[in-house]
């Protein structure tokens, strides 16, 4: 499936980027396409485009603070979790998504 998402943590220094890598790695290992935008101290990186959103089956927001630009995902299936969930067990989260979405 096509997964997009946003990661953001309180300080915007470390967890944001660990969560992104974990999610992308786990998704790719399972044969999914994934693009994750980071909203950290350095600002927004790998910003999700309208095209990314259009082809996404699911949006994962892994954040400990409010994220910007959620309106882009209107009408999409959105899963919101803390960064710790993604850092600790990205595969458990993906298991659930695969089961729910049947993909």
């Amino acid at each position, binding site marked *: 499936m096509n997964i997009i998402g946003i990661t953001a943590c309180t*300080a915007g*220094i*470390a967890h944001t980027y*660990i*969560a992104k890598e974990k999610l992308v790695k786990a998704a790719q290992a399972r044969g999914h396409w994934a693009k994750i935008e980071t909203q950290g*101290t*350095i600002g927004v990186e790998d910003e999700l485009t309208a095209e990314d959103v259009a082809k996404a089956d699911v949006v994962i927001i892994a954040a400990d603070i409010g994220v910007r630009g959620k309106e882009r995902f209107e009408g999409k299936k959105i899963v919101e979790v803390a960064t710790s969930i993604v*850092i600790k067990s990205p595969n458990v989260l993906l298991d659930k998504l695969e089961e729910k979405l049947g993909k």
Partner: protein
Amino acid sequence: MKTGVLDMDIGDILEEDLIELDMSAATKDEAIKNLAALLYQKGNVTDKEAFIQDVYLREAEGQTGLGSGIAIPHGKSDAVSVTSIAVGRTKKDLAWESLDDLPVHVVILFAVRNVDKTTIHLKLLSQVAAALADDDVLERLLHTDDKAEVIRLLSNKM
């Protein structure tokens, strides 16, 4: 996945004299103080106590133990003059708030300048953080006795 950091050198933020692979610390507090002292000696932190206070401010906001024996405390502080990282490893189990509730042996302390916005250093920090998403990297950090390898592992270039 690489973070697209091309011309930057991890050596700007992580040097061998800021790595201690045989730290005597027996508690989280001692570990943070040891590493803060390294950063202070190096001149990267101008006020040790103020920096430590800011590290604990971040600690209060949520756990910094990543699991697998690794913790990443970080202080964004006016007391930091050079954004950089200090790494310490202990033989002793450090009790630390962690995602897997297990003790910590490797402490990677991020010292971040308050005024650093959109600088190369912050980008490098995010690159180091991304390297920590790899379980093999965490495993090697727990066991290597080579400081150069620590730098290599954290630079996300395998």
